[in-house]
């Protein structure tokens, strides 16, 4: 389950690893201000608390579905902070912490999973964090296409009209071990390698695709897939937020510097169910869950920070912030209104479309006919 190939900067008991393999990456950590090191912890703790609250809201009937990401905070928070402001992020559907780091209000996720929207956030307002993609693997091609656009801007004299900063952007795309089997994902790697796109493929290997173990998807460690496509690839301990930060930072720098795409396999674990509809006791052993529980990204990082002298005050302040966010999310969830029925017809097309317009008008008249009937005991 763990792997000798994986880059680890922090041992499960929170000690920094300095050796030949980590020396390349440690400078990324050394140059971080203390406040950013604290942000890593804050974000992991707060988003875990958010995740728990969202799960509670689902059980209480407030959400149709919840997609937990508990256990994957190290992989997500490290890589999320590695991205520069101008970078573009193409998530799958479990990268809640990355979204928050980029400025996505977690309520957008609540609304989506309550059944009020299909996402609907505006990437330019959420730190270029694009919409979730539920069709497994599809976003990998969108990410590669976006990265091709960045590269073409340089070659074509910025024909897309992007800002100067944006021409220096790279793309970070997330997907899972299950997704690695989809044709789209292989095709994305082929295009990325062929055009040497500025992008990082970030595979969160959480060891399961619903009930199917990663061994069914691949007989080799997945990072070797990247290598096979000609993309320099690294495997990391995904429960080590520092490794995730440093290796993703390096990968994005390489990509941004015109050295082509990079591929990171982050070994992590989905501690919870696939979604609130899933029952993992049907397919996996408690031992395995316990093994990963002992490698928790937050406990490890807390030990590291305490070792550096960070005191109780900070940890209790973070705990309070987490409670506050949970309470705020709960309160705001209770005030959510159902969307108007006209939302069905909005934005199907950018320009007017006669069929959609006619159906919207028909529905309005139909609904009005019920209003007219009211009080007259008109039956139906």
């Amino acid at each position, binding site marked *: 389950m763990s792997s000798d190939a994986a880059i680890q900067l922090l041992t499960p008991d929170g000690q920094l690893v300095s050796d030949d393999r980590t020396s390349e990456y440690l400078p990324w950590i050394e140059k971080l201000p203390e406040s950013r090191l604290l942000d890593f912890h804050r974000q992991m703790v707060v988003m875990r608390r958010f995740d728990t609250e969202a799960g509670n809201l689902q059980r209480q009937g407030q959400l*149709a*579905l919840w997609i937990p990401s508990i256990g994957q905070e190290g992989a997500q928070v490290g890589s999320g902070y590695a991205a520069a402001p101008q970078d573009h992020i193409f998530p799958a559907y479990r990268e809640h912490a990355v979204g928050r780091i980029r400025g996505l209000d977690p309520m957008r996720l609540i609304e*989506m*999973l*309550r*059944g*009020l*929207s*299909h996402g609907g956030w505006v990437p330019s307002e959420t730190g270029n964090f694009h919409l979730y993609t*539920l*069709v*497994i*693997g599809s976003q990998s091609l969108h990410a590669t296409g976006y990265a091709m656009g960045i590269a073409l801007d340089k070659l074509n004299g910025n024909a897309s009209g992007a800002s100067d900063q944006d021409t220096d952007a790279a793309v970070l795309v997330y997907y899972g071990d*299950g*997704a690695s*089997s*989809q*044709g*789209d994902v292989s095709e994305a790697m082929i295009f990325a390698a062929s055009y040497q796109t500025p992008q990082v493929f970030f595979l969160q290997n959480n060891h399961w*695709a*619903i*009930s*199917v173990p990663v061994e*069914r*998807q691949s007989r080799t460690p997945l990072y070797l897939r990247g290598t096979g496509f000609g993309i320099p690839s690294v495997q990391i301990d995904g429960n080590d937020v520092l490794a995730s930060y440093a290796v993703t930072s390096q990968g994005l720098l390489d990509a941004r510097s015109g050295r082509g795409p990079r591929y990171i396999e982050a070994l992590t674990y989905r501690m919870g169910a696939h979604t609130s*509809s*899933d029952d993992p006791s*049907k*397919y996996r052993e408690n031992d395995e869950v316990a093994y990963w529980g002992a490698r928790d990204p937050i406990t490890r990082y807390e030990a590291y920070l305490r070792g550096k002298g960070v005191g109780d005050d900070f940890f209790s302040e973070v705990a309070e912030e987490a409670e506050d966010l949970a309470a705020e999310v709960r309160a705001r969830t209770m005030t959510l209104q*159902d*969307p108007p*029925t006209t*939302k*069905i*017809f909005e934005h*199907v097309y950018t320009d007017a479309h006669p*069929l*959609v317009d006619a*159906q919207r008008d028909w*529905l309005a008249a*139909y609904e009005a006919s019920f209003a007219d009937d009211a009080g007259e005991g008109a*039956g*139906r």
Partner: protein
Amino acid sequence: MTDTLTLAKAINLGLQKALADDQKVLLMGEDIATLGGVFRVTEGLVSEFGRNRVIDTPLAESAIVGTAIGLAMRGYRPVCEIQFDGFIFPGFDQITSQLAKLTYRHEGSARFPIVIRVPYGGHIGAVEHHQESPEAYFAHTPGLRVVSPATPQDGYWMIQQAIQSNDPVMFFEPKSRYWQKGEVDRETPPGAFQASRVVRTGTEVTLVGHGAMVSVLLQAADIAAAEGTSIEVIDLRSLSPIDYAPIIASVQKTGRLVVAQEAPGHASVGSEIASTVAERAFYSLEAPVLRVSGFDTPFPPAKLEGIYLPDADRILEAVDRALAY
């Protein structure tokens, strides 16, 4: 011997029977073995038939269908599960360009007895891509047979008939009906595999639909009966080919037809029925054939599904319009 079974259990027993009767039958799909499928339709089958007959595949729909084609060439009768309606599209090329055409291209020397099971349709409040009704794409594709059972009885028998078919069959399972119970007679086979069926007789208006819509039509017919209107309801059961005889006979009696479906109406199965009935029964019609469909928009966020999906009221609104002619 009749049992009261859910649709999910009835299909499960039909699959079990098919696996037991014919060694060549294989099940393949995502999460179908250990987990028994996300809807538990294949629950228990891996323990009975083993991992070489009930196969958890990697996550790749194109590969599931594409390898099923190769397995069929090798003499197997694969039954593929697509986890949800909206996830059939990564396999669309293999289904429409390959599977649908291979018998034709082989000029009959090869058969492709492959069943593709697709839980489909709305009413379950799920996130996007989990509530769609993509059957028209497949009904539009020559070379595929397309069916949808509405009851446990049909679920039990039609899945076996689909597996016995020598042609590829798209088997659309109305997932909102999985947990509804009904009587299943496991000894007496029903009628023909792809026959449509009158499920309620009436004299004034004919309603036609398939899958989960059939129960909505029956509900509408009940309400109409209480208001003094007599409605006939036909369960289509097969979308390609469509068995028109009961529909035409019904329209000759009632003179009015309303076709209903969850799928968007434009270029849909309902459109096809409307035009065929207009061609074949023009002089029997007292009113234009009316369609009641999902709107021509993507499936909306779940909180709006109750507005998007036709309900009994929307069916009856069309019935009123038909009767007003």
